[in-house]
């Protein structure tokens, strides 16, 4: 496959993606699209982006061989791409730097964001402080409770956090509310969308800013082991860390790409957040993609121990990669993710984010079925400091 080139000019990834928004937003999206096209062709834009990634974020993030865990599992060698070591603690900042630079080019002084786990909110608040912009973050009130440390971090960084009480009070409702803010304050405001979803050009934009993960990984793997991994594994909420590491590998033959969705209580129970594993195509939040919905087309409430994966849709490029068979998508349940979380702490001295723990759990599950000279590269999308209250709660402790 040498002709993988998506999206088309209208933002379609095959039958997915597009621009499904109310008319009031169309002009703003066109403006963003045009500005990004100019920025994309401007070497100075990328120079500044890379400068910021190096000096503010601390890139490149290293690759790490998880030797003890690999040995214990007795199969493939597991490597981590250490996005947890980024400033602010996750991959999210790669994207918020890119979008904040765009906002600045467009003369916008106010940025808004939606957040689930709070990582994207923190990354947005961080760049807003860094570039001197006002920042408002929408967060489901359920998530405000689950991710209290991140809420306080956003406040420390000068952002206003608005708890969203509508619907299921999680990420999807925060996204609705951010869109409502944007439509109301469209002249002054730049919407920093946190994942590779939403109306065109966001899925493309976010992917392009997250591709740095895969681009670095390709070079680093070559340097470190002299070849590319047999399998690349990443967790999939909206799909930004996964598309960031997958995309540079799409046309590399022999590399299996595996996206791991949140299985919650188990896909069979219906209480999960795995639209690619158990959903159907539909339209939500401005794009067409696999979606968790009932027979009336209403969006189903999702369940996951990890707030960052608790989303009923998925970025449109993943729907395409699934349909054309280039990537596989699997689900990992809450209990499996928690086991991997603990193992990673004990065996590798790394506290992973609960989101990333889903990818780790799949790697731990599949590694024993593979040969010892095979390589699995896991995108360790974030660190787990934000999750310690949740995990303590599950152990029956309060901190």
């Amino acid at each position, binding site marked *: 496959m040498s002709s993988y080139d998506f999206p088309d000019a209208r933002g379609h990834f095959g039958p997915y993606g597009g621009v499904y*928004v*109310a*008319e009031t937003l169309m*002009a703003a999206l066109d403006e963003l699209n045009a500005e990004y096209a100019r920025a994309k062709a401007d070497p100075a834009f990328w120079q500044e982006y890379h400068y910021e990634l190096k000096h503010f974020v601390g890139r490149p993030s290293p690759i790490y061989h998880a030797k003890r865990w690999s040995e214990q599992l007795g199969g493939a060698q597991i490597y981590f791409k250490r996005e947890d070591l980024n400033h602010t603690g996750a991959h999210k900042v790669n994207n918020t730097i890119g979008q904040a630079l765009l906002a600045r080019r467009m003369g916008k002084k106010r940025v808004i964001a939606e957040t689930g786990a709070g990582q994207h909110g923190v990354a947005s608040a961080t760049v807003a402080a860094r570039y001197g912009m006002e920042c408002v973050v929408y967060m489901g009130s359920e998530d405000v409770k689950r991710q209290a440390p991140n809420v306080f971090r956003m406040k420390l960084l000068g952002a206003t956090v608005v708890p969203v009480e509508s619907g299921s009070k999680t990420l999807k409702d925060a996204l609705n509310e951010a869109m409502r803010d944007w439509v109301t304050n469209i002249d002054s405001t730049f919407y920093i969308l946190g994942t590779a979803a939403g109306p065109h050009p966001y899925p493309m934009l976010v992917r392009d800013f997250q591709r740095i993960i895969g681009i670095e990984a390709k070079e680093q793997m070559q340097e470190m082991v002299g070849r590319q991994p047999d399998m690349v594994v990443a967790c999939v909420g909206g799909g930004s860390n996964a598309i960031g590491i997958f995309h540079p590998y799409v046309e590399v033959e022999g590399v299996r790409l595996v996206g791991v969705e949140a299985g919650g209580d188990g896909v069979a129970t219906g209480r999960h957040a795995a639209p690619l594993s158990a959903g159907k195509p539909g*339209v939500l939040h401005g794009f067409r993609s696999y979606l968790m919905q009932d027979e*009336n*087309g209403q969006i189903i409430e999702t369940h996951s121990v990890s707030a960052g994966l608790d989303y009923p849709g998925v970025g449109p490029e993943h729907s395409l990669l699934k349909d054309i068979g280039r990537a596989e998508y699997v689900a990992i349940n809450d209990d499996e993710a928690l086991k991997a979380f603990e193992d990673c702490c004990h065996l590798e001295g790394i506290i992973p984010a609960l989101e990333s723990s889903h990818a780790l759990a799949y790697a731990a599950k599949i590694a024993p079925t593979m040969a010892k000279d095979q390589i699995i590269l896991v995108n360790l999308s974030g660190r787990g400091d934000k999750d310690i209250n949740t995990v303590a709660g599950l152990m029956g402790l309060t901190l």
Partner: protein
Amino acid sequence: MSRIAETFTRLQAAGEKALIPFITAGDPNPGLTVSLMHGLVEGGADVIELGIPFSDPMADGPVIQRASERALLHKVGLRNVLGMVREFRRSNQQTPVVLMGYLNPVHVLGYEVFAQEAAAAGVDGVLTVDCPPEEAAELSAALIAAKLDPVFLIAPTTPLARVKQIAALARGYVYYVSLKGVTGAGNLDIDDVARKIAALREFLDVPIGVGFGIRDAETARAISTAADAVVVGSRLVQEIEAATPETAKEQLTRLVASLKDAIR
């Protein structure tokens, strides 16, 4: 001629403006909707916009969000909404009904199936808020094949090139969104709206309705001097919210009558 076109032709001949009330199907409960629709007509509604409940109404303010939530407590789906229109049509063949909602419930039924069932139920037009012309080809074709009018939004932010594109696709009427914001917001600028409508006339053959943020008779009157139709939604939904199921119809009829009087 479609029922919508007939209605506007008749009103224009009489020198009248159309009043288009919006309510959400199934709010406060599915058993009441048809009677509320008749109540709207008794008050003077010229066209009814009937909202299809949706779990994620991104373009709506809190009032209409709550209406959707109340309807969804009763599991009101698109086929139930069509059933309500069918029942309404048993005793009303004149008043056009336009379904307004989000694309996903329509998408899940399938555009052709939906269009045929909606036409058979007595629906006249369809406005899917999150389906701009760029994505509307397939749905519009299915609607037109079933003799339904695709209704489109035009916003204060819509540039001229897009107005022309929308003008080429629009049937029935276009819905001018009177403010940058969600339904029920309070930042409507009447003079600005009047100027925009005058500018739009040059490119549009269909009548222009104006909505979002029209909350009282005064504003309705002012808008009606420029527009062909005035759409009132959140204010009516608030009335339903404040009423009991027993008094809702009467209160709604009275409110619609006062709005119709204001724009006559």
